[in-house]
């Protein structure tokens, strides 16, 4: 090659070198779509309108109309584990959040993988998307660590406005703990001394995300945006008019809505034939028997939850409108899901129980929680409890912190520009939150950065609708605080704490037993044995599972009422009516 010949100019050399050195960046700038991941916090599978809910979520619904609803998408049973897996593509026991920090067992303490945050040695989605030439933004709940080496600025995000903690006020920095009274936030790598004026979680997180995207437009790069809402996690704080928009709606009670959503889901084609509705928790009454004032009071909690959902949807709509205004909406992949099942444990009550220092903290900071008209305002702490959590997980059994379907299956909507899948379609691919990292690394032409990937890329199904994300031989395992589960194909084994479970391995066929009502362990002992062996011999050792020697759920068998089967329509409850005899058989008494 004769450089003096002039056949190869220096600018061309520089360009070629640039393409060799920064191939991904060039690819990103010229070809790749923007990516927006929207994560809801403690939202149930059945809460978006397009998953059978009565809650108004028009903007989320629009994603489904322009994209695809996935009915068999799984997360982990709790928030930090899901977020760790989302960010790293790894099982949470490997990546640093083997358990929630609050619930780390004595035999797990100090063990690698059980630190309670995403270990810094693993690359995050922020890292890989940054390396792919994306502008990377995160706003909302981080929940992956509070030390400087763990905050978004250190984990591959160019811009951030995040709450580092797991939960707390939606209006200010009030936390739940006497020894940890203030929530900690960062903005662009700095810890905040105070929150912006007029702060409300969903509003501010959206405002910041819009401003980040707007500021980043001049770079010409696509953006990777992780909008991690704190809503609808308790406390169920929300402003007017959303605070009042569902007033009285939920007076009908959880039993009514449990059945109503199930019916809507069937009509919408979300459920395979033969799927039953999960049994109502044995410790909850049929809401039909509750007095009107009690139904109004407990219904108020669901009013606020629904208001938060609609409020979150409203802010999502603002972001969508902004993307349309700047001409980026059509070139943006949107992924929407919730991080785990809904909160049905009344955790706040446990954390702030009488006798604890947190109880005094609660009295000082969270005391005004009691009146129906106060609930939802800044100093109240509404959490909606197991009755409504069951509605949120319709038709599943279980809720957050359990690997029953209601605790781990969540509604996923993906809007993928250029997808071969029909707009508005519903698919039942077996998917997991660990798939997102492999999907995005494949999209950007990178290798999975954190060792062996257990997740599966989703890109194939968007190119070939006949393909599946997982084969019948692929499996995913779960463990949280000693509760265990594994799904392989349509078969699932579950070992849940009594009385939510039996304390023994159970076997379910998820082809049509989504509600986990029919334990087939005795009918299919060989299959059970095979799957348990898979769990114990592959999932546990490969994923650093250390079963806890203590767990918060271990005493539930003793403190909760004895469980009994609860079948639909018995007791008759809402179907109990005054009997009116045939008119021709009614007579006056003979005097």
């Amino acid at each position: 090659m004769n450089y003096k010949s002039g056949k190869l100019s220096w600018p061309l050399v520089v360009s070629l070198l640039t393409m060799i050195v920064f191939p991904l960046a060039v690819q990103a700038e010229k070809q790749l779509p923007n990516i927006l991941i929207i994560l809801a916090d403690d939202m149930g599978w059945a809460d978006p309108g397009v998953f059978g809910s009565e809650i108004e979520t028009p903007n989320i619904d629009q994603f489904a109309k322009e994209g695809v609803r996935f009915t068999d998408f799984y997360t982990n049973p709790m928030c930090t584990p899901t977020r760790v897996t989302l960010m790293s593509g790894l099982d949470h026991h490997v990546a640093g959040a083997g358990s929630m920090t609050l619930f780390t067992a004595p035999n797990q303490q100090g063990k690698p993988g059980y630190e309670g945050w995403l270990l810094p040695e693993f690359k995050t989605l922020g890292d890989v998307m940054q390396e792919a030439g994306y502008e990377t933004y995160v706003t909302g709940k981080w929940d992956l660590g509070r030390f400087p080496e763990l905050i978004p600025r250190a984990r591959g995000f160019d811009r951030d406005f995040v709450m580092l903690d797991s939960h707390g006020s939606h209006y200010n920095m009030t936390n739940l703990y006497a020894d940890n009274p203030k929530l900690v936030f960062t903005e662009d790598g700095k810890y905040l001394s105070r929150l912006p004026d007029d702060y409300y979680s969903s509003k501010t997180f959206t405002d910041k995300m819009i401003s980040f995207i707007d500021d980043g437009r001049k770079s010409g790069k696509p953006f990777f945006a992780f909008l991690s809402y704190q809503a609808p996690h308790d406390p169920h704080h929300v402003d007017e008019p959303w605070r009042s928009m569902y007033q009285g709606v939920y007076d009908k009670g959880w039993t009514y809505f449990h059945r109503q959503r199930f019916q809507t889901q069937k009509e919408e084609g979300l459920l395979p034939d033969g799927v039953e509705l999960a049994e109502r928790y044995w410790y909850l009454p049929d809401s039909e028997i509750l007095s009107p004032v009690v139904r109004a009071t407990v219904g108020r909690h669901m009013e606020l939850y629904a208001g938060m959902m609609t409020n979150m949807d409203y802010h999502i709509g603002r972001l969508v409108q902004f993307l349309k205004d700047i001409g980026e909406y059509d070139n943006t992949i949107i992924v929407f899901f919730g991080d785990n099942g809904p909160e049905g444990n009344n955790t706040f009550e446990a954390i702030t129980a009488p006798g604890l220092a947190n109880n005094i903290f609660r009295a000082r900071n969270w005391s005004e929680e009691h009146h129906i008209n106060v609930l939802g305002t800044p100093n109240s702490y509404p959490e909606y409890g197991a009755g409504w959590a069951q509605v949120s997980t319709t038709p599943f059994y279980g809720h957050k912190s359990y690997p029953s379907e209601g605790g781990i299956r969540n509604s996923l909507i993906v809007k993928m520009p250029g997808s071969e899948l029909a707009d508005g379609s519903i698919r039942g691919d077996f998917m997991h939150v660990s798939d997102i990292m492999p999907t995005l690394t494949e999209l950007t032409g990178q290798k999975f950065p954190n060792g062996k990937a257990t997740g599966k890329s989703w890109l194939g199904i968007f190119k070939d609708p006949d393909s599946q994300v997982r084969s019948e031989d692929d499996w995913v395992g779960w463990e949280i605080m000693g509760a265990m589960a594994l799904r392989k194909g349509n078969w699932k084994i579950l070992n849940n704490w009594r009385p939510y479970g039996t304390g023994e391995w159970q076997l379910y066929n998820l082809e049509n037993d989504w509600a986990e009502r029919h334990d087939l362990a005795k009918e299919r002992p060989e299959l059970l044995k095979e799957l348990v062996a898979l769990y114990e011999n592959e999932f546990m050792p490969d994923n650093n599972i250390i079963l806890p020697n203590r767990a918060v759920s271990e005493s539930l068998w003793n403190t909760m009422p004895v469980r009994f089967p609860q079948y639909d329509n018995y007791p008759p409850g809402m179907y109990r009516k005054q009997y009116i005899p045939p008119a021709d058989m009614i007579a006056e008494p003979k005097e």
Partner: protein
Amino acid sequence: MNQIKSRTFQLLGSCLALTTFLFVSIAANAISLPPRFFHKTLVGTNFVPILGMNVDGNVNPLDPSYTISSDADIEANVVMAGYARNFSLFGRSSQLAYMQPMGDISIRSTSGAAFPIDSSANGFGDPFFEFNINLIGPAPQRTLPDALRYNPGFSMDLLLDLSVPLGEYDKGEAVNMGMNRFWGRVGFPMIYQIGDVWAPGHRTSFEVIPAVIWYGDNDDYGPTGNFTQSTDPGYSVAAHLTHDLSDEIWVSLDYTYMQLGDSEVGPVETDGKSFSSVGATIGTQITRNMVFSLGYQTTMDDNDPKDIQMSTFSASITFFWGSVLEGLHRIGSDGQ
């Protein structure tokens, strides 16, 4: 669940008590329209208000035309007791009340040294009836959830009052418990809720009550009882800024302006006077179904002997009950 139920009924009791509080002050004096009087409560709730007041000034507090007795010192110790009930009428929240004044009143005047007045009266005053119906605002509270969810927002009522001359009246006496004439009032009480939370410990309201007052004639008026007392209609505006200090204590800053109508006693015509008074009220709940308040109000800019002067110290107790609330209490479901 039990905890929710217990808490719910406890709240309901205090909620009802505090929203219905000052039915008692139906007539802190004859004209005054007290704070939180027009807040609504559960349909079917019954009230027995008992109001004691001590009034000191130069007018008869039971006479809504406030005829000045020059250089007089009038003192009244009056109790007003009665019964009231909330109900729904034409789909709107309504109230009907009956109040009966009783007590004693005395006057002492030395303005005409030759004829000093030193007179007193006691017994029953004129019974007073009040009807109130909401025109703009929340629907009637027919159920316990309605009561819990009550938010006045902006509310406006129609108020109709009538005092019937059945009280004790002696011709020729300088003061009487009865007025010997009808009088009435038409008003439009308005409430503006400040803030979006209406619950014990959070309530703040600004209340304005414009009203027109009309009077019948007293044909047995004056020292001899041979004069006719006629008074043109007057009007008043009462305003209150009320605020909850805590879940169970609230206070109010009170202001009243009144323009009296021109009056005529025999051949003597007098231009109607105007006056303003300011005061404060504090209220609280004592038991499950009894509330209590203290108030003080005094006229402003009243140094001229011809100015109306009146200071009122009042204390009130209101008992209230409703069939559902009592039933819940009897079976131990109200958390008390």
